[in-house]
């Protein structure tokens, strides 16, 4: 009986988690946009604006380029499906979800890669500029992937597994009391992941010294390879791409929050009270991370786009540093 009730509880947590993730993704994007505008001294849009945009876009008619192939029609759906599954796997407020045993860092990375490649293929359908966007996006992918794998290697060395629940448990143990390497390893991995999250979600303030001072969201729209959607997406396709980008940001931030600050996560088999506390903690962590990101984007100097490879190489080196430290130290799991 307890097995059945435990299973039902896990299912309930899973459904709640997915619902919260789907609802919170556009909201988080809106909050970040508002925060960025306020930091720049503008009023900014309402935080619910992404939701309103989605509703409006879904009602509009979809226009495709003449002779666009089925690939362009299927790509946004494929990207959203893969990202939703990734969102279902990354824990938000509670552990012990139904899909918890399935949640694997490499699987999440593979699903996000699937969404990325769908985006680049859809861009290739959009003529000359689309090809340029896709080529630039592929460069970012090629530079980001090694850092991601090495960060995963560090976490896997710490936990002995790439399963997310195992990693979170190991990080908690290391935080409770452990040697230098037990702290340095997850710290370097999470730092590398944070750098990747900035680059992958187009949150780096890019642009040369002479670039005009545009609001960040307009800047993202202008740079085709960093925009959420390929250039010629419209209607429901545009809505799907925007939703996918918001959800991807939420997946990255939840992952970093769960790995860097695993406090407040409700344990497996907990009751509604612990879930509520976990939800509050999760919201606070996301807000803190998002605000830090917005403040950093407002305060830091712009990075010339040609230096993005170096930024990602630095992320890779940080991840490598953690792994090498763990090799060098005798403190191992």
């Amino acid at each position, binding site marked *: 009986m307890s097995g059945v009730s435990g299973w039902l509880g896990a299912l309930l947590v899973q459904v709640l988690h997915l619902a919260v993730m789907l609802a919170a993704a556009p909201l988080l994007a809106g909050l970040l946009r508002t925060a960025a505008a306020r930091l720049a001294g503008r009023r900014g849009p309402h935080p619910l604006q992404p939701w309103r945009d989605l509703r409006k876009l879904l009602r509009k008619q979809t226009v495709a380029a003449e002779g666009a192939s089925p690939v362009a029609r299927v790509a946004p759906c494929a990207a959203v499906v893969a990202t939703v599954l990734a969102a279902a796997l990354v824990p938000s407020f509670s552990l012990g979800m139904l899909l918890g045993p399935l949640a*694997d860092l490499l699987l999440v990375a593979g699903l996000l*890669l699937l969404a990325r*490649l769908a985006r680049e293929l859809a861009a*290739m359908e959009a003529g*000359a500029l689309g090809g340029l966007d896709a080529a630039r996006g592929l460069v970012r992918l090629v530079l980001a992937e*090694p850092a991601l*794998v090495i960060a995963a290697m560090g976490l896997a060395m710490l936990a002995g*597994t790439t399963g997310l629940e195992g990693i979170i448990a190991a990080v908690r143990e290391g935080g409770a009391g452990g040697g230098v390497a037990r702290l340095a390893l997850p710290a370097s991995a999470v730092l590398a992941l944070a750098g990747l999250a900035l680059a992958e979600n187009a949150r780096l303030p890019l642009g040369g010294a002479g670039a005009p001072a545009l609001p960040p969201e307009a800047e993202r729209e202008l740079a085709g390879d960093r925009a959420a959607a390929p250039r010629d997406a419209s209607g429901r396709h545009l809505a799907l791409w925007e939703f996918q980008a918001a959800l991807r940001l939420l997946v990255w931030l939840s992952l970093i929050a769960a790995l860097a600050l695993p406090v407040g996560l409700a344990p497996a088999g907990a009751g509604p009270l612990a879930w509520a506390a976990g939800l509050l903690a999760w919201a606070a962590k996301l807000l803190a991370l998002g605000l830090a990101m917005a403040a950093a984007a407002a305060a830091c100097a712009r990075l010339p786009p040609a230096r993005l490879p170096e930024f990602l190489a*630095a992320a890779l080196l940080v991840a490598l540093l953690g792994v090498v430290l763990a090799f060098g130290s005798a403190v191992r799991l």
Partner: protein
Amino acid sequence: MLTALALVLLALLLLGAAAPLLARRAGGEAALQAACGAAAGVLASLGAGALALGVAAPPLALPLASPWGPLRLALDGLSAWFLLPLGLCAAAAALAGPRAVPGPVPPRRLAAPPLLLAGLGLAVLAADGFGLLLGFGLVAVVAAGLAAREAGPAASRRAVRGLLLASGGGALCLAAAFGLAAAGGSGESAPDFAALRAHPPEGWRAAAFHLLALAGIAWLAGLLPGRRPPPLAAAATAAGGAGPAAALLLGALPVLAPYAAARLLLDLGGPAQPPWWGVPPLLAGAALACAGAARAATAERDADSVVAALAVGQSGLALAALGLAAGFRAADLGPLAALAAGAGLLQALHQAAAVTLLMLVAEGVRRGAGSRRLDRLGGLVRTMPWTAGGALLAAASLAALPPLSGFAAHWLLLQGLFAAWRVGDAGFQFAALGAALLAALAAALAAAALVRFYGLAFLGPPRTPRAAGAAETLPRTRIAALALPAGFCVLVGLVPGALLAFADPALQRLAGASVAPRAGLLGIAAPGVDAPEAVARLVPPAVALLLALVALALALALRRWATPGLAEAPAWTGGAMAPPPHLPFGDPAIQPSAAGMAQPLRRAALGLQGCAAARPLRRAPDDPRPAVPQAAAASWVRPLRWARRALRAANGLAMPGRLRVETRRLPVRRVVGRLFAILLGLLAALLALAATG
């Protein structure tokens, strides 16, 4: 069973010899293809049967003797497993074989597939070094003949010369390795595998055997990429018009590299070798994977050259997995060794299926759209839907996307690399770190290459009138030829655990341990630590089911909330003018091209090399550095200068946020240098701590 296999090989040789007669008959080519397909089917099913029944037959001595002894064939778990990719590739190639173009066929082209299959089968089944060399040599000679026939005169001479040089060098290396091992071990001169297994090489002989064998394998299987395309890929692309032979050369021959490495280094090398035994294949394989994928992503501009470079890269990944298994086995980590070897075996099967599928697609594109240049294709997804579907499946599989075959193999390989620190040897640990880096880079580069390939060939507007008029001719056999490897791509992706359990005899031989408790029907658990929370699981059927469920929910949601329908409008070209009427296929100068798609990647790689090309621009034309005598005179200043430089470096170290973003471009060399300085400092501190406490 061995007798049957030997008879199949003999029949293939006879078929090859009878090709000139068959070429004159009307239905000769079809009959020959059918015979080849049947032979491939028999090979694969005998291999599968041997794996399922666990038959261990005594070696069969053929009545064909070499100067060094009889020629022996044997069938164990390892060769039985590698008969599967071989048979799969050959069967698909034979199904796709009969050409759409009627007319007489040159007999040389007709004789190639059965002879190639016979050579490959002989190499897999051989039970001594002579048989292995004979098989590889047959393949090399046939490939050289094809290249001489199909390419133009100058190109063919170069291709044939390169091929023969590489094969000859490889054969010499392998022969030397066998001679060394035989002379050191049993004292017999015959390089018999059973004798070698009983007396594996030791000491310096072992090291020499290892390196010679690895070099020989890489050369013979055509893996070594250089500035020019590797000779085998050149031969295969030259033979592209020859149909099944090219698919065999690219789909099956690179698979033989992991087979030969597994046979010589893991099986014959014996379990008593030190951990460094795994390092050369690990690093060489990962570097090869990276080089092949980089070549496919940046240099190649033809559809089949891209596939050739990718095939080379994929077999590098399998080699790396086998090297990892050798390291684990040397450290007595049997279950991990079994997992790593399983990654290699799955990678071999996945590679054969996906590369064959992509090769058939490339050949279909060449037939249907009349060109293999990526710049002359485009928009084929509308006119060649079956081919485009097969290409998408193969590309997704090769790019290691879940839940297809590439992801399963890549996941297993990475799990093995992540567990490599359990081998106590520091050198092996660092090699595994480097291999993980290279493998990740290779996967990303392969994904980039495949997006470029698929986007240029199948998406966008057609770039030439011929591409606009492309059509696919699809007899039933051709659909089956595409469906067979496609089915294997899905099968390997969905049930890797069941396949690993099926490959247990091979894993027993390679790793000395069984993977059975960790590989179930549905999924795999890694890395095999017994604590339940410290286990990563791969359950691809569940992933596929969940993806399908989410897709269903999304379809329902879109149906409920979104406005249906799709209007068409002229493509938005970023505000550029519509092309003039004399360019109905658009202005070629503003369309994405193979070289243009590769350029950002090349530029990024250049930037990571420390901007060596950009440096002369920064220095003033008249160099203000002091001449040599002054420098010598002022040598006492040097320590001061060093101190200043050290101070400046320390300043930079203390404030890594101050990377002087606006003012100056900091070369990545210096970033690397700084970070490694930090690293060294931390390591020194740790060592000091460890020494004191």
